[in-house]
C-alpha cells in the first residue's frame, strides 16, 4: 500500500473517531423529505455517462445528468423534450435535425466553475458531450450508439484519436515535409500491422496443414499458401485504410505542415475541432446532420450515455470525474460508497420541470392516484438514499420493514407476496396498504440458429424444415412453468411485448410454435431425417449457469421425443460470445434487451450487414429483409411502418432463424409512504417525480 494511502487511511480513522466522539450523526435533518430506495445488485460502476452501460449506471447517472430528450413518465414508450424547448424538427425527412435548448438550465453549483456557481448550458456543451463518445480515452464503450450516424463524426473520431497518439511519434516525424509525413506514417504504421497479419496467416496455415489429411492436404499447395498470405496482407491494408483513410491522413498532414513535429509532441484529442454534422446557430440553437435519415437517432438522444456534461468538470476532476458528477439533473451527489450506497440532495437550481398533466395518465393510473401531483414542479423530495443489495433477502426484509419505498419482487419471494396462479397481491400485503405494479420488459430470450452452419443453416426447404422441426419439438410453456413459475411471456417474433410489431396475443401464424410433436415429425420427414434417422447431434452453445444447465436438460428431453439428439455445451460468457462471433456455434442460447423502445432495434438483429461479429449472431441474410430494414430506418411511427415490422417479423419466423422468444415480467411492490410511483425500466429519470408521505411510515 503506498505511504500516501496509509496516511489517508490513518487520517480517515482519526476523523471517524473524532466524529464519533462528538456525537455527530449522519442522516437527514428534521423536516426534510427523505426517500430510501434500493438498487438491486451492486449498483453503478461509474457516474460518468460515457463510461456507463448497465442499468445501474443509468439509474445513478439519470439523477445527476440529463439528456436532450427523455421518456414520458406517464407513457414511457414515448419521448418528450427534457433539455429542449420542444421536440427536434426536421424538414428533409430526418437527415437534418434542429434543436433549441431551454434557456434556463444550469449545471450544478460546483468547485469546477468560477466562484463555484454552475453556468448555463449551451449548444457547445451538447457537442462536447457527444464528442466524448468518440474519445478512445473512455474506451469507446458507447461509441456504437453514434457510429456511422452523424456526418463527419467517424472521421473526427479517427483523426482526433490519431492526434492523441502522435506525441509518441514526434521523434521520427521531425524533419519531414508533408508528403514525407504521409508516406512515413503509412510505412511506420502499416508495415508492422501487415507483418503481424502475415505471421498470423502463416501460423493458421501451418496449424490447418497439421490437421489436414487426404484430399484436403492435396489442396494445400505452395500456391494456395501464397494466396492466403496475400489475402491476409490485402485485408490488413483494407483494415488500415478504414482506420486511417486518405482523407484523415490529409487532415493530419496539413496540420503537420502548418505546425510541425514539435507541435505534435503535445497533440491531444481536440474537442474544439469541427464535426461536419454539428452546426451551432446560437448558444441555444443548433443543428445535427446525419449521414442518412435514421429515426432511432431521437431515441439515442434520450439514452443516458448522451447526457450533457460540463467540460470544466471533466477537466477539473480528470480521472475522478466518474465519481464527481456535475450535470443539470434534479439531484446533486452527496456520497457514493461503491457497492454500498449512494445519496443525493435536491438540486436547488433545477430548471422548471413539471409533473405530468392529468390528461396524460391512463384511467388505471388515475385509479392508482398517480395524477395527484399533476402540474406541480419537481422534484418533491429533498434527499434520495439508495442502498445496493447484492442478495435479495436483505432487500426484501428491508422493504417489509418499511425502510425502502419500493422493491422489485425477487423470483424467490414471488409467492410470498402474490398468488401464484392469479398473480393477485396477498391479503397480508393489501392490509399494509402495499401497492403492486408490473411491467413487461423488452426482452428477447431465444435459442438461435447459425444460418451459415452446414447442418442447421441455409434457406432451402429442407434446411428450413429441420429448424422448424426443432422449434415445434421444444415446449417453451413447459420451460416457463417449470423454471419461472409461468411468469415469463412466451411470444412469437423478435419484437418484445409492448412495442409495435408485437403480434396480437403474442402469436403469429408464421411461427413454428411448440409443442407440436406431429408437426415436428412431419418437418423431419421433409428435412430428409424421418424419425430423426441420420440426423447428427445438434450442438447447442450457451452460457454456464445453474438455470441454463437445467433448462438445457429439459430441452434435451423434449427433443429426444422426436429422436433429435441435443448436445448442450456450456461456456463462460466471453467464450460464448467469441464462439458465436466466429460463427462456430450451430445453435446458441442468448438474450437481448432492447436498447430503445422501438421494434427496429430487435429487427436489426437479423439485418444482413450486421452479421457476426455484429449483432446479427444468426448470420441471417435475406435481400428482401435487408431492403425493408433500410426502409424502416428512416420511418417514424405509422401504420405503414408497423405493417412492415410485421412482415419482417414473419419473414424471420417463417425461416425459423431461432426458437423463442420469451420476455420477463417484472413485479414491484410499493410501500404506502412512497407516492407517485410507477416504476419503469425504460429510463431512470423518473425518481424526481416521486414524493414521500412520512405520516404513512410505520
Amino acid at each position, binding site marked *: *500500500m503506498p505511504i500516501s494511502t496509509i496516511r489517508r487511511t490513518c487520517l480517515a*480513522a482519526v476523523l471517524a473517531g473524532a466524529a464519533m466522539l462528538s456525537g455527530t450523526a449522519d442522516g437527514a435533518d428534521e423536516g426534510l423529505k427523505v426517500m430510501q430506495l434500493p438498487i438491486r445488485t451492486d449498483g453503478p460502476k*461509474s457516474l460518468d455517462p460515457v463510461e456507463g*452501460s448497465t442499468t445501474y449506471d443509468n439509474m445513478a447517472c439519470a439523477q445527476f445528468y440529463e439528456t436532450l430528450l427523455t421518456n414520458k413518465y406517464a407513457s414511457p414508450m414515448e419521448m418528450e423534450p427534457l433539455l429542449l424547448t420542444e421536440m427536434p424538427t426536421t424538414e428533409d425527412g430526418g437527415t437534418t435535425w434542429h434543436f433549441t435548448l431551454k434557456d434556463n438550465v444550469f449545471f450544478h453549483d460546483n468547485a469546477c466553475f468560477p466562484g463555484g456557481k454552475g453556468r448555463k448550458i449551451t449548444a457547445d456543451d451538447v457537442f462536447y458531450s457527444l464528442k466524448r463518445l468518440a474519445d478512445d480515452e473512455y474506451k469507446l464503450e458507447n461509441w456504437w450508439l453514434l457510429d456511422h450516424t452523424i456526418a463527419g463524426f467517424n472521421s473526427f473520431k479517427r483523426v482526433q484519436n490519431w492526434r492523441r497518439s502522435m506525441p509518441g511519434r514526434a521523434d521520427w516525424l521531425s524533419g519531414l515535409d508533408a508528403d514525407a509525413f504521409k508516406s512515413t506514417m503509412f510505412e511506420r504504421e502499416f508495415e508492422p500491422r501487415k507483418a503481424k497479419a502475415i505471421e498470423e496467416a502463416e501460423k493458421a496455415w501451418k496449424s490447418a496443414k497439421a490437421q489436414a489429411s487426404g484430399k484436403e492436404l492435396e489442396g494445400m499447395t505452395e500456391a494456395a499458401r501464397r494466396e492466403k498470405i496475400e489475402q491476409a496482407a490485402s485485408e490488413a491494408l483494407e483494415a488500415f485504410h478504414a482506420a486511417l483513410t486518405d482523407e484523415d491522413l490529409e487532415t493530419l498532414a496539413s496540420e503537420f505542415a502548418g505546425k510541425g513535429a514539435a507541435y505534435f509532441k503535445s497533440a491531444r484529442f481536440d474537442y474544439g475541432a469541427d464535426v461536419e454534422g454539428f452546426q451551432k446557430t446560437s448558444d441555444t440553437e443548433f443543428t445535427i446532420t446525419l449521414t442518412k435519415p435514421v429515426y432511432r437517432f431521437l431515441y439515442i438522444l434520450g439514452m443516458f450515455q448522451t447526457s450533457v456534461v460540463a467540460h470544466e468538470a471533466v477537466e477539473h476532476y480528470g480521472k475522478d470525474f466518474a*465519481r464527481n458528477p456535475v450535470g443539470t439533473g434534479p439531484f446533486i451527489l452527496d456520497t457514493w460508497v461503491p457497492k*454500498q*450506497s449512494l445519496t443525493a440532495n435536491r438540486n436547488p437550481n433545477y430548471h422548471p420541470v413539471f409533473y405530468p398533466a392529468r390528461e396524460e395518465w391512463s384511467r388505471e393510473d388515475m385509479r392508482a392516484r398517480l395524477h395527484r401531483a399533476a402540474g406541480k414542479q419537481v422534484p418533491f423530495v429533498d434527499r434520495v*438514499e439508495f442502498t445496493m443489495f447484492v442478495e435479495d433477502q436483505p432487500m426484501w426484509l428491508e422493504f417489509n420493514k418499511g425502510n425502502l419505498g419500493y422493491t422489485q419482487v425477487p423470483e424467490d419471494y414471488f409467492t410470498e407476496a402474490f398468488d401464484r396462479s392469479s398473480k393477485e397481491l396477498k391479503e397480508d400485503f393489501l392490509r399494509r396498504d402495499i401497492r403492486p405494479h408490473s411491467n413487461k420488459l423488452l426482452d428477447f430470450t431465444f435459442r438461435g440458429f447459425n444460418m451459415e452452419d452446414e447442418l442447421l443453416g441455409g434457406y432451402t426447404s429442407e434446411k428450413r424444415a429441420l429448424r422448424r422441426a426443432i422449434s415445434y419439438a421444444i415446449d417453451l410453456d413447459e420451460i416457463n412453468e417449470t423454471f419461472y413459475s409461468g411468469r415469463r411471456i412466451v411470444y412469437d417474433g423478435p419484437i418484445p411485448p409492448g412495442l409495435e410489431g408485437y403480434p396480437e396475443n403474442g402469436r403469429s401464424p408464421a411461427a413454428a410454435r411448440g409443442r407440436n410433436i406431429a408437426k415436428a415429425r412431419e418437418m423431419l420427414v421433409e428435412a430428409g431425417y424421418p424419425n430423426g434417422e441420420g440426423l447428427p447431434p445438434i450442438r447447442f452453445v450457451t452460457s454456464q449457469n445453474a438455470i441454463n444447465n437445467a433448462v438445457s436438460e429439459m430441452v434435451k428431453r423434449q427433443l429426444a421425443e422426436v429422436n433429435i439428439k441435443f448436445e448442450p455445451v456450456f461456456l463462460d460468457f466471453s467464450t460464448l460470445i467469441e464462439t458465436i462471433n466466429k460463427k462456430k456455434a450451430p445453435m446458441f442460447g442468448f438474450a437481448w434487451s432492447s436498447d430503445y423502445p422501438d421494434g427496429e432495434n430487435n429487427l436489426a438483429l437479423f439485418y444482413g450487414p450486421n452479421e457476426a461479429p455484429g449483432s446479427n449472431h444468426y448470420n441471417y441474410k435475406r435481400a428482401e429483409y435487408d431492403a425493408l430494414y433500410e426502409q424502416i430506418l428512416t420511418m417514424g411511427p405509422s401504420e405503414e411502418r408497423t405493417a412492415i415490422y410485421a412482415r419482417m417479423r414473419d419473414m424471420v419466423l417463417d425461416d425459423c432463424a431461432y426458437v423463442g422468444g420469451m420476455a420477463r415480467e417484472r413485479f414491484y411492490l410499493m410501500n404506502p409512504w412512497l407516492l407517485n410511483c410507477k416504476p419503469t425500466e425504460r429510463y431512470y429519470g423518473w425518481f424526481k417525480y416521486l414524493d414521500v408521505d412520512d405520516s404513512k411510515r410505520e
Partner: protein
Amino acid sequence: MWNYIVRRTLYNIPVFLAIVLVLMIALRVNDPVSAQLGKNAGPEQIALLKHDMGMDKPLIVQYGMFLKKLVTLDFSERSWDQGFPVSEMIANAVPPSMAVTVPTLLITATIAICVGLVSAFNRGRFTDRMLMFLAVIGMSISVLVYIIIGQYFGAFKMGELVDGWPFQVTVNSDAGESPWFFFGPSNWLRYCMLPVMINVVVALGYDTRFYRAVMVEESQKDYIRTARAKGASVKRVMFVHMLKNAMIPIITRIMISLPFVITGSILVEVYFGIPGMGRTLINAIVAKDFPVIQTFTALFAALFIASNILTDVLYALVDPRVRLS
C-alpha cells in the same frame, strides 16, 4: 531469529513467484478484456484496453511489470469495474472486514479453547458428549442457513417484535464514506454484532472439535498425571500446564485463520452489506475486474506466506523446545 526469518523469506520467494505466474496464466486462459467489455465491444475497443493494460505485450513482460508493481507496492492501477485505484479499494475494504473478523477470531478462539478444555477434561461423560453433539450439529449446517435464518430472526423478526432492537438487516447509507464507520461502538452493535455472532456459531463447531482433540491428547500425557499426583488443582492443570503445552497446535490454528481476518467473510459481508474485502473480491470476480482480482490474489498469497513464517517464529517464542535453525 532474524537470520531464520530472512532465510525463510528467501526460501518462499520462488514459491511466491510461482504462485504469481500461475495466477497470471490462469487469468489469461480466457481473454479477460473481451470478458469484461461484453457483447457490444468491437475489436478496436478490445485492442485499446489491452494496450492500456499492457496485455498486448508478451506474458513474460507482463509478469515482470506486475512483479515490479508488487515489489514497489504500487497498486495505483485502477479497477476496470469501479475506476478506483486498487490501493484505495484495499484501504477502504480492510477496516470493515476487520470489524467483523477480528472479534470473530478472538471470541471463537476463546470459547472454543475453553469448551475444548472442559470437554477434554470430562472426556466420555455427558458434558463432553453433549458439547460434541452440538459441535457436530453446528458443523453440519451450511453457513448460508445460519446467515439467512440469523438475518431473518435476529434482525428482521426481532426488530418487529422488540422496540429499539439494535441489530439491522443491512448497512444502509448511514454508513457514509468512512471505512472506519464500523468501529464506532453503536455502529458496531447495529451492523456488526449479529454477523459476528453468526460467524462465531459457524466456526465454533470446527474449532471446538479441533481444540478438544488437542486437549485430549495433552491430557493423556505423563506430565498431567504428575501434576495431578502432586496435588495441582484442576483449574491449574487445565489453564497453566495443559494450555501452555497445547500452544503449538493452538497457534497453528489461529495463524491459519489470520489471513482470513484481512480477506473477510464473503457471504456474511454480502448479506449484511458490509463493504469488506470478501465482498470486494467477489464483486470483482463477478464483474471480471481483472486488475483487482490479480492484485488481491497476489496479496493474499503473500499474506499466507507471511503468516506461515510468523507461525514458525511464534512456535519458538511459546515453546522453548523449538529452536529456529
